[in-house]
């Protein structure tokens, strides 16, 4: 302790500052977060990793079973397929959302009538609760579109998109895009408006 203080007194001012104790106020902010994060995220995570090497179901007796769970997991084709689906779905959605949102933004920043009204209409899907959107589109895909198909005699519209195992993902992309487009569109509009007019 005494050695340290001698060194500090000998050193220059800036160095001494950096070696001084940190302001307690920083700990006041850091410690609660650190404790909560450790208790709520890190500890359960580590416990979870531990139990992944056992046959525990959360209660009762359990024993170690090595890598069994991991071997079973990676030999499951459904898991690989789920990853592929998620990637494919994300890529498709991002592309659709950005193209549509950009085109809408260009349209809505040009000199047209009812600009404000149209912008409001296109932003509405963003403020509708997800559960209502799910309900409405479930009804549209299952009832309205097949009914329209039957009325117009268009064969491929007559079965629900959701009932087609090969195309059901398209329906999910459409609804996800509908909800994500307004947010992206607003960003594009803001960006387009900040471009000087003479460019």
């Amino acid at each position, binding site marked *: 302790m005494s050695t340290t203080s001698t060194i500090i007194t000998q050193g220059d001012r800036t160095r001494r500052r950096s070696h001084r104790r940190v302001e307690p106020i920083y700990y006041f902010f850091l410690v609660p977060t650190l404790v909560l994060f450790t208790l709520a995220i890190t500890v359960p995570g580590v416990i979870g990793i531990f139990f992944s090497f056992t*046959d525990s*179901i*959360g*209660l*009762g*007796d359990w024993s170690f*079973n090595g890598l*069994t*769970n991991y*071997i*079973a997991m990676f*030999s*499951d*084709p*459904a898991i690989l397929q789920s990853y592929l689906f998620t990637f494919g779905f994300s890529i498709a959605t991002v592309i659709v959302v950005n193209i549509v949102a950009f085109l809408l933004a260009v349209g809505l920043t040009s000199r047209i009538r009812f600009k404000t009204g149209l912008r409001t209409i296109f932003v509405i899907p963003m403020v509708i609760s997800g559960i209502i959107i799910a309900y409405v589109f479930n009804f549209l*895909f*299952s*009832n309205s579109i*097949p009914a329209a198909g039957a009325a117009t005699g268009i064969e491929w519209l007559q*079965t*629900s998109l*959701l*009932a*087609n*195992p090969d195309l059901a993902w398209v329906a999910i992309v459409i609804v996800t895009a509908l909800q994500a487009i307004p947010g992206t569109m607003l960003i594009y509009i803001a960006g387009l408006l900040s471009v000087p007019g003479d460019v």
Partner: protein
Amino acid sequence: MSSKSSRAVRIAASAAVLSLLGSALVGCSSDGRETIRFTFSKREAIEFMTKLVADYNASQDDVRVEIDTSGVDVVSASFVRGNPPDIMLANYNYEVARFVQRCALSDLGGTDAAKSVREDLQPLMEQYGSCEGRTSALPYSVMAASVIYNKQIFDEQGLEVPRTWDELLQVADQLKEAGITPFYGTFKDDWTVGQGWYDYSVGGSLDVLDFFDALAKEGTEVGPESEVSFQKDFAEPMDRMLTLATDYTNDDAPSRGYGDGNLAFSKGEAAMYLQGPWAFSEIAKTAPDLELGTFPLPMTDDPDDLAVRVNMDLAAMIPEESRHKEAARDFLEYLYQPEHIEEYNASQLGFTPLEDAAAPDDPRIEGMIEYYDEARIYQGPSVLVPKTIPVFNYAQAMVLGSDPDDILRTMDADWARIAFRAPAPTSQTKESAE
């Protein structure tokens, strides 16, 4: 000074916590009764059960039962925390059976209730696994399900209830010629395909209990080479199921759900409906006077193969970690008094699992009574596999056009992979080597 006062605060706080904990642990209310927590979450029957609990509380002074309707997930969590309910009546399925497999439930073997329960139901209970030497759960209410049919349409067309596969096809053909949809399909909801189309087809074709015992024995060997497998034993039932599902259903079956089906069936838009007794009350909402009946789906040419699908809608269990097992047992005996258990089942169109119990008095389920009494019953193959095999989705994929051979092969692989992680339970007693 400061250290002293903080210690005082700490002592006060721990005293407060202790007294809270203490009151929770002792479970004694101010009037000296022992309080037990009773889990019951079957929505349709909460009113009935609340009244029964009130009657019990009024009938004696030692125990007070508090009914807890918070549901299965909360109960599972309470087991993990080591604070399970004192007694529960719950749907008996793979999830609840995990408590049985890990011996987390106490032995009810010595109770009068256990002695009065029909013995031939025990193998069905043990299909989900057992804890050596214990009777971990007792059936309380058995639901039977089979084909629901519109009696009026059958009468008008002069049709008899079919008892063989050929008769079934004749009935369906005749209905079709008369311009009536034979079966109403609701393929949009995967569970309706699983519990109805898939389960009735398999249960009418083979002995479900034997099949799953044999499958559990094969374990990781299940596949194209094994003695029993989904791809071998389920191929024909699935083929026949698909014949019915493709040729004899409404055109829009793929986009119709359970609610649509109840409405359409109540309006007489189809003659037969593969649903359970729970659909009766829904159908009655729009057509209270519609005359309905039930019969097991015939899948073979031998009427002896006819059987109805049952599930243990409610089973009684007392967790090992309960601190009030004696009080809970007293309430258990009360629940199993014939007048209470029979009244409950009558109110829910369920079958009472006691020896010599009266069958429910309702014309809509009359057609299933003889099968139940003769124990020609099976549990749905869709609920006898762990949730990690998405059977409902697989069944739905088949009726929507996927290749059944592919799907059944996938199910074999799934089964073998799960067996690789942990051996499947069987209705036979476990071997000591385990």
